[in-house]
């Protein structure tokens, strides 16, 4: 008994008091700050990028593809790509994830999540999601689990991951969607009652990530469904997830 009290006392209070204000320390790689005017067009970044996320004219990075490996930043001789530690990068629009340096991180965040009245009305105080890992490597899965741990504790906002799609308001997908998992993903979606949303977490779910182009994938599901929220990362950081969802529903 005394040992347990000692442990409790030693732990103190662990929850992040305000997740909307929390920062992730450097060298975390979040929103990239791009300066096309410095770019000497050597092409090194595009050569080393494992996922083809970088375009040249204008210099831009697709955060839906990027795995935040940092190789382009390290090898760019002109320092025209610099990753900031800004993590609130989720967006309701796929195109919006392509950043070209014309916006600061704050400006990016302001326009990233489109506020929809009906979403706020229906899901504003409670959002239950069914997570489907469709060939996710267990990186995003660990981070989604962390969203519910004592540090991030997204349950305090009424956001939970539930055991059955029948109890859910939507599907939260991780992984590049393997052909072997595609039918089960479709089943889980069909079992979720309307109205429902679809959220993609991680570069694999959004674009296939490092697995894009693999003949073992079947991403047709995404073509058939409206995607409501994109959460970039490799893996997604819990603060990106929690803030992205909060912006979307609150």
């Amino acid at each position, binding site marked *: 008994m005394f*040992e*347990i009290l*000692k*442990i409790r006392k*030693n*732990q103190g209070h*662990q929850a992040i008091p305000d997740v909307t204000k929390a920062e*992730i*320390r*450097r*060298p*975390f*790689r979040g929103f990239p700050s791009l300066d096309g005017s410095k770019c000497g067009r050597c092409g090194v970044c595009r050569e080393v990028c*494992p*996922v083809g996320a970088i375009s040249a004219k204008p210099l831009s990075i697709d955060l839906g593809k990027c*795995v*935040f*490996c*940092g*190789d382009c930043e*390290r090898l760019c001789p002109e320092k025209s790509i610099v*990753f900031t530690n800004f993590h609130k990068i989720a967006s309701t629009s796929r195109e919006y994830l392509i950043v070209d340096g014309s916006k600061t991180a704050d400006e990016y965040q302001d326009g990233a999540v489109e506020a929809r009245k009906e979403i706020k009305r229906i899901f504003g105080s409670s959002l239950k999601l*069914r997570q*489907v*890992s*469709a*060939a*996710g*490597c*267990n*990186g995003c*899965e*660990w*981070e*989604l*689990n962390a969203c519910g*741990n*004592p*540090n991030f504790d997204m349950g305090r906002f009424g956001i939970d*991951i539930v*055991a*059955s799609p029948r109890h859910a308001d939507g599907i939260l997908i991780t*992984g*590049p969607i*393997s*052909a*072997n*998992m595609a039918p*089960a993903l479709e089943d*889980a979606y069909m079992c979720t009652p309307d109205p429902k949303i679809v959220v993609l977490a991680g570069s*694999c779910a959004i674009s296939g990530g*490092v*697995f894009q182009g*693999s*003949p*073992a*994938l079947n991403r047709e599901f995404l073509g058939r469904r409206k995607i409501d929220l994109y959460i970039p990362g*490799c*893996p997604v*950081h819990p603060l990106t997830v929690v803030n992205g969802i909060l912006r979307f529903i609150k």
Partner: protein
Amino acid sequence: MKWINTKNNRPVRIKDVPEMGMDELRSQIIRRCREGRRVVSFFGMPKGQSTAIYAVLADDDASRLYISSGLMGKDRRYQSITPEAPRFHIFERELFEDTGILPEGHPWLKGVRFGHDRADRESTMERYPFFTMKGEEVHEVAVGPVHAGVIEPGHFRFMCQGEDVHHLEIQLGYQHRGVEDLMIRNYRRSGIHLAESIAGDTVIGHATAYADAMEALAGTEISRRAQSVRAIALEMERAAIHIGDLGAIANDVAYLLGNAVFGVTRTLVINTLLALCGSRFGRGLVREGGVVFDFTPDLIKEFREKLNKVYRDTELMAEEMFESASVLSRLDNTGVVDAEAARNIGLVGPAGRASGFSLDVRADHPFGIYRFYPIHKRTMNSGDVFARAYMRYIEIKQSIDFILEQFESIADDRPLMQPLKKHVPDSLVVSMTEGWRGEIVHCAVTGKKGGIVKYKIKDPSLQNWYGLAYAVRNNGISDFPLCNKSFNLSYCGNDL
């Protein structure tokens, strides 16, 4: 010479690998396995009109690897090795699925991952030949592929008599992404990134295996400092997952304090790793030729402080948890894999060590800095959930001790990263590391011009999934989650 003898990360020329008929290779393998050698890799490669089968056996006490090959006859079948050397069971299944070469008399010849490039397209997941039982008291429980929690997909089929599990069959393949195939096609651009994603909870373990293989083929020895950074990250990865799993085990026995405390302790470990490399999972740190991030004196100081706290917090919580009668009553004698079964199945990593099977690549086939700072192998005997949980606790402390000692002795040599020379052509290298789940094996083969023509990956899960199925036999079905967590295997690592 029937075998060529080499070591972890020491390439051999393909033409120097002895070649014989498949029957002869089979009897060679059986003989060597009786002498105590152990299979670590087994795969086929096209050779002329036929297929050559490569077998890699380990002599763990001597830190040696033995490689030989057998040329397949026209009938594309041979007498199965499994009945004589049971550890081959999963390797022969894999070979059969990949190439269609039939091991005649294999007792359990079923699909492993249903890859897109499997030999027999008629063998589908829908048609999986589940083992069935009949009888009035027998019932089946089917779980997955989508599970209740946030975990990867897989299908479990329990054959129960009342509450007791008589047999569990685990059907995998849902996670197949075609990694080995992508590796060959894209390794120049994204090899290391693919390696980091083979199993996203074992980023450093697989990335190191890949990088070691590439460096060995290029004949590059990376700096001591870079080797230390890799090993420190590998031990951080091990400690973080083990702590997280102790929390998950606590959760499964409704010991919620343990779940909460281990959860935040794990956070501290991975946030500390982020301070080094920007990723809580160590992504972006290991690259071919070294590592990208370095320890500054300030960072070493911070790591020391944080890890000492992690050590204390873990010890405080674990000592309390492993004293608790209500916890022990669930862990003791649950999910037992005895030593003989562990050897026969070929369990690796902490799961094997918990059953008294003392294998650890860091000690047996040391790589990188472990060649100079060896790890002491630890084992337990009871082979139950308790042993698999307690083993994790032992290893957390061992990992933190190792890291703290590295900080005392970390070399100051440079560069941290060096460019790789061209790969030696027509060669084969076996690269092994000890991930937190156990033995990781990557085999890379180069062609005429030095490009990678074959890449074979073995995650420890490939062998250990069968151990989980065995562990739940004759246990109550309600103890399955507990057994499962004590192994915590990778679906992606199996499905590739």
